[in-house]
């Protein structure tokens, strides 16, 4: 297949996650939020992680930053950032990386910024801490960054509180905050979900333009395939704490090979799709992470599982290989023919 282009192996990647498992103990039992996840992010590239609620996409990224409470969660596997293992790193070492080498943009800028301190102070903090900068130097840098992200009158707005900013301006300030120390890895968790569509378009373009300037690697988490199509170089589709499909944007969105990706694409209307073709929803509901289905996590909702011989789908968990791959028991030929016969006509 054409998508089997040779690509960089894990060791060259800037961020390399291998067999990550994250479990939380709750009153109801153990939640397997992430269950055997591996992926790489290269410098200057954007990895889009798509998934619905409970897919484990946000948990993964908080784990990369080391922000889970060690008392209630167990984390296994390996997270390697630029040659440094993060899972065994001390809290002090992680603090040096957070906000500095790796930074995060959260979904809702209203709740993600403290209402009690000025935007300027919240921007200055990481710069003073990581760069040992004085208050004055941090202010200069913050004003410069606020201007860069398009905040009008940045010198005046420096002393304003987050609630005095509009929604879009707040998210710009949040981006400026993440970029204060020139991070090499930027994690954006649904950064535009809380915003209106015309504001979302501004912020997405801004992130793309800034990446070109700063050269950061970006992990972009979203549930919106349209957003990911515009933002990412590579896509990983997650479901029930596992990766289902991975490849470049073109590969995953134009020649998808996994029944879940097919389901997502067919259940979503587009601005140019034929309105007379009914949407094809994915039957059933997302799995419980307390008692995930055996075998393939998606098998209870998969309409193609009867094409797989025996009970493979419900007994054996399909693995996702390196590079372009899908975690599915269907054969390559089956995937190809189902896509061409059943899926592609719907996406026209």
């Amino acid at each position, binding site marked *: 297949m054409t998508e089997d282009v040779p690509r960089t192996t894990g060791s060259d990647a800037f961020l390399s996650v291998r067999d990550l498992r994250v479990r939380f103990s709750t009153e109801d039992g153990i939640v397997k939020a992430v269950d055997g996840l591996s992926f790489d992010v290269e410098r200057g590239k954007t990895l889009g992680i798509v998934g*619905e*609620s409970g897919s484990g996409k946000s948990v993964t990224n908080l784990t990369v930053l080391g922000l889970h409470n060690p008392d209630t969660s167990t984390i296994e596997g390996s997270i390697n950032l630029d040659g440094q293992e993060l899972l065994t790193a001390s809290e002090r070492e992680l603090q040096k990386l957070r906000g500095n080498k790796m930074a995060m943009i959260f979904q809702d800028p209203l709740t993600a910024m403290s209402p009690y301190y000025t935007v300027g102070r919240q921007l200055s903090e990481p710069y003073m801490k990581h760069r040992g900068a004085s208050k004055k130097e941090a202010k200069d840098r913050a004003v410069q960054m606020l*201007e*860069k*992200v*398009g905040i*009008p009158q940045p010198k005046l707005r420096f002393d304003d509180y987050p609630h005095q900013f*509009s*929604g*879009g*301006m707040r998210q*710009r300030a949040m981006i400026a905050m993440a970029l204060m120390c020139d991070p090499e890895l930027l994690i954006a968790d649904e950064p535009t979900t809380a915003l*209106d*569509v*015309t*504001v*979302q*378009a*501004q912020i*997405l*373009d*801004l992130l793309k*333009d*800034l990446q*070109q*300037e700063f050269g950061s690697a970006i992990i972009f988490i979203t*549930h*919106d*395939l*349209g*957003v990911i*199509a*515009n933002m990412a170089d590579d896509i990983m589709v997650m479901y029930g704490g596992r990766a289902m499909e991975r490849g470049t944007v073109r590969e995953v*969105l*134009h020649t998808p090979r996994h029944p879940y990706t097919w*389901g*997502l*694409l*067919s*259940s*979503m*209307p*587009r*601005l*140019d*799709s034929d*309105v007379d073709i*009914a*949407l*094809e*929803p*994915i*039957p059933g*509901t*997302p799995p419980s992470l307390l008692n995930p289905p055996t075998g393939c996590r998606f098998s209870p909702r998969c309409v193609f599982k009867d094409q797989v011989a025996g009970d493979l789908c419900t007994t054996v968990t399909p693995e996702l290989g390196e590079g372009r791959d899908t975690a599915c028991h269907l054969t390559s030929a089956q995937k190809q023919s189902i896509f061409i016969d059943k899926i592609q006509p719907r*996406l*026209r």
Partner: protein
Amino acid sequence: MSDNLTAPEQKHAEATPAAERRTLLEVKGLTMHFPIYGGFPFKRKVGAVQAVDNVDLTVAEGEALGVVGESGCGKSTTGRLITRLMEPTAGTITYRGQDITHASRRQLSPIRSEIQMIFQDPYSSLNPRQTVGTIIKSPMEVNGIEPAGGRTKRVKELLELVGLNPEHYNRFPHEFSGGQRQRIGVARALALNPKLIVADEPVSALDVSIQAQVVNLLKKVQDELGIAFVFIAHDLAIVRHFSQRVAVMYLGKVVEVGDRDDIYNRPRHPYTHALLSAVPEVEIEDAEPRERIRLYGDVPSPVNPPSGCRFRTRCWKAQDKCATEEPPLVQISGNRDGHLTACHFPEEPTTQARGEDVVLDPALQALEAEHAESAESAVSDKD
């Protein structure tokens, strides 16, 4: 999930074009201003949130009217006014020829059963202490309606209609998933054989894979039971998929209204262009490039909306006239019948890419100019 819709007592929508259908609901000059109190030393009315301002809309029998717009555009308030959950500040709401704008509770009661509402949040709009059966039954009880075969039988029919197991009659809302809860909301709305359903963001709280289940259910309800819809949503693709006609709202005003094709393929209002261009899309491989319009900043406050055309502060075509004269919502030249646009300087009726992108955001302008420059110098270095 297959939704077997059978409702013998309902008449199917006549297969007539929208224009020839009878008007079911007519809204004229609808205005809702929420007062703001403040001041010193005694509080008094100091202003008003102009949530909805002079809105005209019509819904024909069996038709789905989509209402789109961003936060603060007044689409939800409009929905609540139509269902008379609120009384408007001004304007008239006429339902089947009867003025219900200021109708009393008693006058409203026969109409209440014909106009139903579906809410965004399936978690908070269902009473957690009542069984599903009680929830769906209660509108029948309140209105004293006794269907043939009894209320319980009707509830079970409704559950089946919306794709839920009738045996789950005695379960509580928390035992259902988000998508199923929204189905319960639909069943409750259908309990009184309504003629009009106002659906306010009915799928935006649901996961992508579940949204389609509910959209398909609503579409079948509309097609097979002939129920008219006012479908309020911010997702332009879902509104396009669901509605025959679409109204675009901005800061309390309808800026453009027309058939689906008019709005999505031949939009005239700059705001409609900007809105469509902003939708992030998974494009098919040989898709024609779309125009790129990037506005700057957020929607202004509805407390002090701009004079004249409310969109002018974010519009690239705005001129002096836009500040002084409010553009009327009319069929401007070049528009087809029923396609109304409120703009002094309308755009070309296409969404195809233009020669030059419209980028109003100064940060984007600066970054993109920088990148273009460095790309140019890279090219000249090679030469």
